[in-house]
């Protein structure tokens, strides 16, 4: 049975005090993010075909498809759709990225997303092709 005493942590405390503090210098220094980090979603409007798969798989209902025009297939007019992302509810799961067959989506390393206006978090990039 080890000896009970008050202040058992004192030696370690002094050791810690003499060491360099373990605090990372954010925001003065950039954060080192691992290669797989899942940050803000980004879309390449050139690649997106409007297939809607991402909107179907998203568990958080982030993605809505918007009609941006029509195209002719045979003699039928079919709507052309593009996704709009309501990133405020995005849970950064990456499911949409995995499922996009055209590799239009990507998770960037951007994590500093704080904003006073929720509208800023709506991504309409795909619409302006």
């Amino acid at each position, binding site marked *: 049975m080890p000896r*009970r005493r008050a202040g058992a942590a004192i030696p370690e405390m002094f050791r810690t005090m003499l060491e360099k503090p373990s605090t990372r210098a954010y925001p003065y220094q950039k954060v080192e993010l691992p290669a797989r980090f899942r940050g803000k979603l980004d879309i390449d409007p050139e690649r997106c075909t409007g297939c809607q798969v991402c909107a179907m798989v998203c568990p958080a209902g982030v993605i809505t498809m918007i009609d941006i025009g029509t195209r002719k297939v045979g003699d039928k007019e079919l709507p052309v759709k593009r996704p709009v992302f309501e990133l405020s509810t995005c849970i950064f799961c990456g499911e949409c990225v995995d499922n996009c067959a055209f590799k239009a989506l990507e998770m960037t390393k951007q994590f500093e997303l704080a904003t006073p206006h929720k509208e800023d978090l709506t991504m309409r990039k795909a619409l302006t092709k």
Partner: protein
Amino acid sequence: MTEDKPPRKEESAGLMKYSAENLVPFGPIHPALKEPEYFKLVLEGEKIVEVIPRIGYVHRGLEKAAESRPWVQNMYMFERTCGICSFVHSLTYGQAVEGLTIYEIPRRAKFIRTIIAELERIHSHLLWVGLMGHWAGFETLFMWVWRDREVVLDLVEAISGNRIHKSMNAFCGVRRDMPEGMEDRIVERMKFLVDRANYYKGIVDTEETMLERTEDIGRVSAETAEKLCAVGPMARYVGLRRDIRLNDPYAAYDEVPFDIVTSKEGDVHALLKLRLDEMIVAANMVSYAVKHLPEGPIRIKIPPVIPAGEHSSHSEAPRGEIFYYVKSSGGRTPDRVKSRQPTMANLPTALEILKGQTIADVPVVLTAIDPCFGCMDRMSFLDIESNRQWTWSGEELRRYGINYYFPERMKMR
């Protein structure tokens, strides 16, 4: 004090039988509980004579929502039942669903699942030890332990891409493989954590003030714990050998050697040491699994429609047994999902322990069960001493609600 207590009124579910002065609310917004939960403590001086829990502040309606969402999306939702042992939720839900399908889970995926689950256990136990220090007023321990916890989170982030919600699981496999060249780093970091765990064991064993706070606190007999269905560390600290990993192995637990830790002392101090010991075991398991990771595929893609049937699955989360039941009628969405979390199972035991303690012990004892009230919105009570049993019906809840919302005592100027 005791004499002038009004007689017990059974029909009010024990809520209004005490005068306002000796009822102390504990929660729902209380710094000791990182989650909102409400306990009314009936006090005599500093001593607690009765605890009345009021739960449901985190009720979000997951089970109901699950019925209208596709199978895969539910995985991400159930993962977010809780941020502390999130992976094990998706794992158990996944296992329950996998049970309905005919596919075999690749061996490599099983190992990766084990690694993540054990990393999660280490992170959860460290978090717990730190918070225990915080609640006992020992900030330094809290800071150190949480500093060391970041080691695990960094590893988890490197493997999965997020610190908390790993989103690693998929039906019949995992979504991401282990990154290249992580093996040495993981083994080395695990060694570091084992060293730290041993140091903290020394601290909780020798520091006088910490011992004063934890020794002989939170005692419960093995019989009571067994009768009240305690699970996880709450069962093991009174000597019950209960661990789903051992009793009913899942993932790769039948291939990774380990032994569970139990304790005989049955107080909070024993619980602290037990968790640190479990952490060491988990760290060794991670090192072993990383070294013996089999080759092969990590995932089988399965169709989005799950065959009809019922299946259940359980697993050992850091805080005890998690249980999932799923029912399918062969569609794209489940018919019913039911989950049971360890905290729910441990709450009756904790209430039993709290009786007779002082108010200073409340945070410590409630931490002992690790308050995570993700899933408690209905409840029956059983007072084993007087053999009195009662349930809250909707009517009682309503009456309690009316009483609660009566003119507030606290008003603005």
